[in-house]
């Protein structure tokens, strides 16, 4: 039986090599590409879960208000009522999950108020600003203004 092509053997060899290459590619791909790749798009679906897994550092206002009802009452109707607790008291998720484990410190009234209220031309003109050199005679702000209800009545 004469072969149809002159170099049939070469062609078969090449075809087998190509097929083996394709098989190796798909096997390697199956091993190396994670199962969840392409679940939602061209990325690893598990990456969403990885991003979610981080613990929160800021507890959120709701968590604070669950226990500190007296502060909610003290702040009611005041200029600072809308300010988040952790804006001044710092991140306190640890304290929220175990009140005994992490005790929040008391913010220093001589510096914390000026973070927002120090005079600066780039601040909106309507926003209340002070120059501590000509206001308050060097006293701590909290001597006159109660931080939770800053307006002096």
């Amino acid at each position: 039986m004469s072969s149809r092509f002159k170099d049939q053997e070469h062609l078969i060899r090449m075809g087998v090599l190509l097929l083996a290459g394709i098989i190796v590619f798909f096997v390697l791909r199956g091993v190396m590409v994670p199962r969840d790749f392409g679940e939602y798009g061209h990325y690893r679906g598990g990456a969403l879960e990885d991003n979610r897994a981080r613990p929160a550092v800021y507890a959120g206002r709701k968590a604070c208000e669950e226990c500190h009802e007296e502060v909610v009452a003290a702040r009611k109707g005041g200029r600072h009522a809308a300010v988040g607790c952790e804006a001044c008291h710092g991140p306190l998720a640890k304290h929220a999950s175990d009140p005994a484990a992490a005790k929040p410190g008391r913010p220093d009234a001589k510096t914390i108020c000026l973070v927002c209220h120090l005079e600066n031309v780039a601040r909106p003109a309507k926003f209340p600003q002070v120059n501590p050199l000509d206001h308050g005679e060097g006293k701590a702000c909290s001597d006159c203004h109660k931080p939770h209800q800053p307006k002096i009545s």
Partner: protein
Amino acid sequence: MTSKSDRREFLRKSSKFLLLSGAASVAYASVAEGQPEKAPNYRMHDHWWGMVIDIDLCIGCGNCVRADKAENGVPLGPKYFRTWVERYHIPPGDLQHPEKEELPVVDSENGGFDGFKEKYKKGDGSKNFFVPKLCNQCSHSPCTQVCPVGATFESPDGVVLVDREYCLGCRYCIHACPYGCRYLHPETETADKCSLCYHRIVRGLTTACCEACPTGARRLVDLKDPNDPVHEFLKMHKVHVLKPQMATGAKVYYNALDGSVR
């Protein structure tokens, strides 16, 4: 015959049990952590996250920058920011030309982490204001398009995230972002960026920067939630996004954005 149907029944039951107990255990863990137990019931396709920033309310206190670094473990120092605040200064003679490219004097010492020291004089006729910046959570983001390995992507709920395990650290996305919102994390050697506090928003919390913002200048919004006040806000205000000419589909809306802001 019977054994086959038994097997199917067994598989169905056990998978149900596994699924339910998994959700319940996640719920229990989040309750034990003192977090709202929203995460297990979180459905990505019900949300489309964005942010609204009111420049008229920003006082440049830097609370957002500090909160973000604390929440997300962003390295301290002036090169690494997921969010930062810029101060714009437009001298009196230049007020009439907000379109000139070289005009605005922008400074952002340490990204506003330490606040802003007074630099300009009151009553000199100049215009000064703060602009908080963060990832614009683009819906057609240039950074995800250039990633060669699919390590950064737009999630089904509209947040651009980074897969730290997949990222090669090739920095292509850092170059591609027209807003300069990405950096290379020095420890992991992977690209990092604002994740819109994805770990918080899926639990029903707001972002750390919004939590710490004392004036409410920035607000997390869910554009798919019909009860979100954002719809009213967008209707009643003249809002803008940064660099609309780049067609990035940015979802961080700025109210009272000046034409000079780049």
